[in-house]
């Protein structure tokens, strides 16, 4: 896609502009216009009345992580550490062990993400060879009064459900 280039004339050369004040007053007129409009009727403000009005989250939104399971409920993750290796914030902490549910050989014993350190880049999702981790829960706000609670563990991530229908999520991936 070619970038759109708009050439703006360079300003500030004429004597009138060099006096500054005229230009400053012009600018002030613009801001005053906005001020008066909003003072007169504040329904024109360009704001979302969060949290009462919630934003619409698209399927590609990178929210809180979840771990996916096979249809039989066993985790898809095989503890390959690709996500941990790629995580630029170094906030994924996995401990691997021998698999006990008979799916393959390896599985995570513990899988922790420190959401306070995560930068929500989505590299972990991209790196995963098993489609075992996604950020499609649609949960975008999480707060806590201490750091420990910002670490989410394997059980919690396995229990989270996706926030979007599968087709919509896949369509989102195609766009990339």
């Amino acid at each position, binding site marked *: 896609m070619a970038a759109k280039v708009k050439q703006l004339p360079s300003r500030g050369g004429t004597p009138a502009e060099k006096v500054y*004040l005229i230009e*400053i007053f012009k*600018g*002030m007129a*613009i*801001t*005053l216009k*906005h*001020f008066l409009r*909003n*003072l*007169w*009727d*504040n*329904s*024109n*403000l*360009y*704001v979302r*009345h969060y949290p*009462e*009005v919630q934003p619409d989250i698209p399927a590609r939104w990178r929210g809180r992580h979840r771990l996916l399971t096979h249809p039989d409920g066993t985790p898809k993750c095989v503890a390959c550490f690709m996500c941990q290796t790629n995580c630029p914030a170094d906030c994924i902490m996995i401990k691997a062990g021998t698999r006990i549910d008979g799916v393959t050989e390896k599985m995570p014993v513990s899988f922790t993400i420190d959401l306070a350190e995560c930068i929500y880049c989505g590299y972990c999702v991209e790196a995963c060879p098993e489609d075992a981790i996604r950020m499609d829960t649609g949960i975008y706000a999480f707060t806590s009064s201490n750091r420990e609670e910002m670490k989410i563990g394997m059980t919690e991530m396995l229990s989270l459900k996706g926030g979007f229908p599968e087709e919509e999520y896949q369509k989102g991936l195609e766009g990339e």
Partner: protein
Amino acid sequence: MTNLDIIMVIVRVSISAFVPLCFLAVCVTMERRVAGFIQDRSGPNRAGICGIRAGGLVQNLADGLKLAFKEDIISEHVEHKFLYVLAPIISMAAAIISFALVPFADTLVLDGKSYVMQGIPWDTGILWFLAITGFSVYGIILAGWSSTNKYSLLGALRSASQVISYEIPMGLAVISLLIVYGSINLSDIARFQGQTWLGFIPMWGILLQPLAAVIFIVAAFAECNRTPFDLAEGESELVAGFHLEYSAMKFAVFFMGEYVAMFASSAVIVTLFFGGYNIPFFDTDFLIRNIKPVAFVLLVILPVFMFYFAKWIRRNNRSQYLRENDPRKAEATIYIRCFWILIAIIEVFLLAILAFAQPDTAAAHLLVALMQICTFLIKVTLMLFVYVWVRWTIPRFRYDQLQMLGWQKLLPLALLNIFVTGAIVVALG
């Protein structure tokens, strides 16, 4: 000294000391909400006590509480702890007392005695203001130096040199004014501006001395360290400049000092250029002589004004999204009732005056003084609005541009202005 004398001293001092402090709330709220509106957002409108948000005032209360209860940190590396603590106090104190000589009403005559309506009844006038604002920069320099932090020190250096470069054009602008007014006493200056030209043009400083007005206002912005001249704290390059190491209440004192200084310089600007406490077209004598019609006009205007004000509150104080039993509507009703009660009280007072007061009595003098105080405060508020308005319109200057403007533009212009003014005054005799 009679009892009346003592009461008047207390009244005047407390007005000149506490009005600037009370205006802090106005300044901060205005700063935030005007910034919001200019940028098409709403500014703080959430914090409330039992749903009463008072248009954002409660947010200030919350912030004030927060600052008051925050841990007051003095970093280990600060060597001169005493100077470090002293710095914000200097800033704040200088800002408050710089307002002391500004008259907020015409000389009040009670029982045949006249009382100058300013905090300290001295004649030094504008010189006092120049002296004290120059002093307030010590606070900034001390803060920057004693913080033992290079950002702070750079901020303080900038601030010091900025104040030096802008005090000169400011002083020169004042000189040309003095040539016109013929006095340094601010009460005299305000009274001078109460006259009219050809019967309908008020003889305000801005009309007599437009160039001096521009220079003075620009320099006043610089003296207050306000955008576009807030290089001392330029957060993009100096993080927060001189108050980087300050936290909690010490930071709050700096912050308040800045707004009080803004208030004081607005007051001086109003006094010098916008007629001070004078109600346009009506000088003090006229008002005192015609006290009954004046009271009557007020009696009529106030309810009409309130009616439209109530409408405005109703329109804007509601939730902008679907909400059942919108509590903000109930809130608006409360506001409107409160205001109506206030208006009713004032109406009763005015009725009493209408019924009993004679021209040129103490009551008439008091009413006029009150009206003038209100006028003065309204003018100051408008000037404060200009401060805020400029801040949210103009980006910060670069440091060399700032110095260039001060020395290469404002200084020659101010000198030129003095010569021209002098020549005209001499020519007109």
